[in-house]
């Protein structure tokens, strides 16, 4: 009860702050300009006008070639993403991101998805306090906010960033972000997950409401803190917490995610690591309810967890190209702890080795190759091995 009140209060406070911010930026900007500008003549005559906007984007083309012959090789234009921006003034901007997954979108099939992943207004007031509202990325983990193909190794994103952190994780909401010294933070209130769509194999992946008539009877909170004080290193921690009884109204289920990560670059060496843990309160109720209504028990766990560590070395090739060799180890268990009365299935405790190379034809064009070995503890299909080729670019 108290928690609900706090949430309501927080929601109202942020809503009020957002409302004020929409009216205040002109004043705030004027205040900052009240001190004489850097060079009055220059400011008066040559300050460039705000950028009117622009079009950017990225694409990923994947070829997946299973070693085991019972599965077919697949060639897929996995992502085609366009980013739109518009700057109304130096302190008021719009960012939009439109994504087509798997190249083709057809109704009621699993062919692909057309998604508005970002569509928000940023009100930039002070370095330490800015406001954002609209469709936003959830500030959690390394990949979710930083997923342009040249920024990560491997053709596919880590499994952890697929089923534990369902990247690209986005939804509607609003909140604040800023920077204080070497610390950077964001704190958003967002539409919650839908626990009816949790699954044993894919964890939280299917549960995003994606801002499409999102039910906000519950409001989720999410936040991230990053420390940028060490040259070449970024250390971060994130959380998500909120009710998730969207379709299952009779039960109060809630979901919490905690996460920690780090990225370090020293000369040619790059290391990154991430840990994420999910807590689902009411997992037994979810299983019971869905087993009764659909006849299928989803076998949802009460805890999921995953981690990975990746090392890479990046060297120049000739004057303009570079190559990076990398290896990544990860363990993902979407049935780490089960509710009383349910047993974990061994196939969902997965260990993944990915080794390969990223060849940079340009800092924005990455040719990728890797070998991925996914092992689990089931007797039925304990091993999956694939050769993956990818071409990803940003413009």
């Amino acid at each position: 009860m108290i928690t609900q009140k706090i949430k309501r209060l927080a929601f109202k406070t942020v809503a009020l702050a957002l409302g004020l911010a929409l009216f205040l930026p002109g004043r705030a900007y004027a205040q900052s300009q009240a001190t004489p500008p850097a060079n009055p003549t220059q400011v008066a005559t040559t300050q460039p006008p705000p950028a009117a906007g622009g079009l950017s984007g990225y694409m990923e083309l994947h070829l997946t070639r299973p070693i085991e012959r019972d599965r077919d090789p697949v060639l897929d234009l996995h992502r085609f993403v366009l980013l739109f921006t518009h700057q109304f003034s130096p302190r008021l901007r719009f960012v939009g991101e439109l994504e087509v997954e798997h190249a083709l979108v057809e109704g009621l099939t699993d062919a692909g998805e057309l998604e508005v992943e970002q569509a928000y207004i940023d009100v930039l007031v002070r370095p330490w306090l800015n406001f954002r509202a609209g469709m936003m990325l959830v500030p959690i983990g390394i990949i979710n906010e930083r997923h342009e193909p040249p920024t990560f190794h491997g053709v596919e994103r880590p499994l952890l960033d697929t089923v534990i952190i369902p990247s690209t994780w986005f939804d509607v909401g609003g909140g604040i972000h800023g920077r204080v010294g070497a610390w950077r933070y964001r704190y958003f209130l967002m539409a919650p997950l839908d626990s009816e769509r949790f699954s044993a194999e894919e964890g939280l992946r299917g549960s995003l409401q994606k801002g499409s008539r999102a039910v906000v009877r519950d409001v989720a909170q999410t936040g991230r803190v990053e420390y940028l004080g060490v040259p070449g290193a970024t250390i971060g921690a994130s959380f998500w917490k909120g009710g998730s009884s969207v379709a299952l109204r009779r039960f109060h289920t809630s979901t919490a995610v905690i996460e920690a990560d780090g990225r370090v670059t020293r000369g040619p060496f790059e290391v990154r690591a991430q840990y994420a843990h999910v807590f689902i309160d009411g997992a037994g109720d979810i299983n019971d309810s869905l087993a009764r209504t659909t006849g299928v028990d989803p076998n949802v766990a009460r805890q999921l967890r995953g981690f990975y560590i990746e090392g890479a070395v990046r060297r120049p090739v000739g004057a303009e190209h570079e190559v990076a060799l990398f290896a990544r180890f990860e363990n993902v268990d979407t049935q780490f702890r089960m509710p009383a009365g349910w047993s974990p299935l061994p196939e969902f405790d997965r260990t993944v080795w990915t080794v390969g190379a990223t060849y940079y034809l340009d800092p924005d064009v990455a040719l990728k190759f890797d070998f991925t070995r996914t092992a689990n503890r089931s007797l039925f299909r304990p091993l999956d091995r694939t050769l993956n080729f990818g071409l990803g670019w940003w413009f």
Partner: protein
Amino acid sequence: MVVLMTLLRLTALAALLFQLGGAQAPAASAGLQAEKVAVRIIAERFEFRPASITVPLGARIEFTLVSEDTLHGFRIIGGDVDVEIPKRGRGKTVVSFTPTAAGEFTFECSRVCGAGHGFMRGTVKVTPKKVTP
């Protein structure tokens, strides 16, 4: 002889003063150079390092801008600086900025560089000059 000795003494004294003056000259020069503050900023999705810079009023800041990945922009809001930072391995951009008043200036990436482009900002804090009594 006395005159000669006096001339020698005066010459030695002049030389000494010249030496002292000469020793002070670099200090003055260093004082002038202190007006220029060199700042190297590394841009990477989605951050500037360092993102917080403090300089005294009157200093001319010479920014050396380098990218660790893609093409970024560097714009000082309220200043006349808006330049591109070339991609990784493609060189650097050097640009100067001379604030003429104390205060805080925000700089930001002015070239869309990815999903988190909006986070890429920093500040130049210009402190008032100390008044020497």
